[in-house]
């Protein structure tokens, strides 16, 4: 049985950080995926051994959502889906960082404006924060998988260095 704990979702936002500022990693520029929402220290709680915890971070979009979702990294769109459950409207972008392929999930969006094959720069618009799928209000579920395997999530904050 999977435990459900609120700390899966808690964020410790640091309001002193300026929203939307560009940062960079060893592989180039990085942009916070929801520039209108203050960047911060979001806790990633997934434990690959027990397969429990939250496999991404949830960036809240307030009561109404509608904020822009942008690509955090350089990459190519490899998948777009519209589900009425689970991740709702989501987009997967493949990037190469530190010579490793990563798959970046942008989930629960109200809508998206990219298609498979689109090349994205850091900051390229992907869609709009929403509450599609299984969601309790507008937020962006931002998740990174090392290969495209459901059990291989890694801490997104490690790749959003500087935020």
């Amino acid at each position, binding site marked *: *049985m999977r435990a459900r704990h609120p700390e899966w*979702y808690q964020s410790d936002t640091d309001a002193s950080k300026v929203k939307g500022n560009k940062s960079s990693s060893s592989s180039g520029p990085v942009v916070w995926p929801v520039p209108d929402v203050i960047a911060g220290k979001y806790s990633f709680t997934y434990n690959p051994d027990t397969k429990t915890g939250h496999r991404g971070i949830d960036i809240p979009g307030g009561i109404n959502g509608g904020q822009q979702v942008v690509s955090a990294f350089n990459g190519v769109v490899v998948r777009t889906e519209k589900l009425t459950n689970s991740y709702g409207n989501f987009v997967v972008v493949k990037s190469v960082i530190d010579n490793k392929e990563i798959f970046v999930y942008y989930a629960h969006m109200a809508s998206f404006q990219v298609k498979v094959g689109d090349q994205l720069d850091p900051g390229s618009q992907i869609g709009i924060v929403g509450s599609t799928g299984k969601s309790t209000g507008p937020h962006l579920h931002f998740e990174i998988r090392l290969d495209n395997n459901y059990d291989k999530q890694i801490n997104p904050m490690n790749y959003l260095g500087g935020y």
Partner: protein
Amino acid sequence: MKIKSTLIGFILVFIMLFNQSISQANNNINIIVNYRYLITDVNPIIEDNYCLIPLRALSEALGFKVEWNNNDQKITIYKESDIIEFQIGNLFVINNGKSDFLPIAPKIINNRTMVPLRYISESLNMKVNYAEMSEEQYIWITDFDILDDIDVEINDNFFMLTNDPAPYYRLRDNKSTARGIKLGDKLSTVKDKYGTPMRVDEMDNDLIRLCYISKYMPNTGSGSALYFEFKDETLIRVELDPPN
């Protein structure tokens, strides 16, 4: 003189310690009204297992009007056809013309009128749920019913339909849910057992889907959803969507 000041110092330290323990016991009460956190200027408190909450915050969240009579400290709450009348320091209440008793008396703290959260919310047809998680207290005031943990337990009655993009489960054809619902049951039977759903979806092919959720936090993928799908009012599918 020295004895006196020592005594005063002692009392001050005692008061400080006492105050601190009160605020520590109560500073982690999170109140969620439907899909948002309720922020109050004075912290809610829990006494004898009952939560007292600032009247103004509750009235704004639930949309009721308040009439305050300063002479006898009587408060009247109006919402649509509901009228609730009570008094500071008094357990007696008149709820839609009927005499009743509050579980805890309203009181004034830091110039804020504090009223019993559950009694008033439930009188105005809201559902109230409580949980203690990760050393924090959570209270949900919702206009829909919230599932119990056992309702969303992933057991052998469910099989994993897919793990793409996330694990997702379906009730086996010959099994029933924790509350005894099985395929073929009527929509009214499901509502009798599970109450008011969080949401009703009209799906393709004339399917109707009732969506229920377990305890959750706003603006997240927390909580497990239980979906009941109906064709012509008859249950054809039950699916379980875990936290994501």
